[in-house]
């Protein structure tokens, strides 16, 4: 089973990329997380370019299409979703019919250096994913005080939080398994 991981942060030492990698370690043996690392190269969404978008847009859509599920780790800027991530989701949601996000099992996690753990950005990312037709887990994972949240080896310091992340991944994979038995999202 293939999970596409998207970190909403472009920063080299991103806490959210670290969170994605912490999640990758917790997946069962029959599942693998592959990171999509070309967020920076996506052009701003423009309906005029929908018919012939830039190659990076095709790369994003192809990566989503080939994945069984998507796991997004989002930072939070001004209590909301980063523009680069929203831009990628806008490209992935179009055209509406046959969009790469359509019916895609999805989960959102997020880390921030504040005491709140990107809860608003996670909620808004889930909203965008739902609007795009994805099948989105309600469960989330706010990782607060991200500067001290990870061990040198890349695990979450808080073992309860790590267990919560494992449960979220289990639910995401269960969503993949259940998807084929459910009617397509309206």
């Amino acid at each position, binding site marked *: 089973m293939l999970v596409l991981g998207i970190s909403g942060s472009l920063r080299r030492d991103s806490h959210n990329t670290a969170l994605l990698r912490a999640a990758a370690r917790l997946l069962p043996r029959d599942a693998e997380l592959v990171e999509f690392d070309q967020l920076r190269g996506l052009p701003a969404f423009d309906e005029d370019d929908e018919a012939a978008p830039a190659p990076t847009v095709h790369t994003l859509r192809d990566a989503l299409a080939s994945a069984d599920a998507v796991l997004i780790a989002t930072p939070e800027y001004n209590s909301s979703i980063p523009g680069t991530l929203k831009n990628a989701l806008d490209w992935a949601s179009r055209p509406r019919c046959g969009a790469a996000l359509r019916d895609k099992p999805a989960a959102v996690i997020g880390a921030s250096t504040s005491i709140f753990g990107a809860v608003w950005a996670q909620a808004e990312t889930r909203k965008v994913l739902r609007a795009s037709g994805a099948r989105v887990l309600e469960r989330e994972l706010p990782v607060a*005080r991200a500067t001290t949240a990870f061990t040198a080896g890349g695990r979450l310091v808080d073992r309860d939080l790590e267990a919560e992340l494992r449960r979220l991944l289990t639910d995401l994979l269960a969503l993949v398994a259940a998807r084929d038995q459910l009617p397509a999202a309206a």
Partner: protein
Amino acid sequence: MTATQTIALPLGTYTVDTLHSYAGFSVKHTVVATFRGEFTDIDATLICTDDGIRLEGSVPVGSISIDDQDLRGHLLSPEFFDVVRAPEIHFVSSDIRVDEAGAVALDGELTIKGTTRAVQARGALTGPIVDSYEREKIGLELEATVDRTTYGLNWNMPLPKGGVAVANDVKLTLSLGLLREEA
């Protein structure tokens, strides 16, 4: 000033021992978690006369110490303390009652962000003792709860899954070491 004193406290003026004092606050955030911070620069004087005890003190808002610089900036902004217009938090007692066991009940006025409101605190007075430098020293612990919004610290945000980001009630904790000045 009115005061009731039953504990044997030598008359005089007591000034704060900053090395052994603490002025902190705690508030619930995301409904169940607790955020804590402190003000590191404390000025306080306790005066004990035949008429009773009077406590007065202040902290510069800019001495707020928390381990999140972004949040520190937010707390200093007009959405919270507004440090530029209101750089100091001030307290003065109006009535301090100390029973024979050292339990303290205190009434006073607390000024935050330019707003002065009555506040009640409870705590304990310990000592006096004579410390290693032959100084008479007392300890005063106080705790009070205030509604931050009554001082104009109004920022909040609804959480996506219910509740609000920060509670209104803030617990204030004061732990003072006070040294009696030479007569």
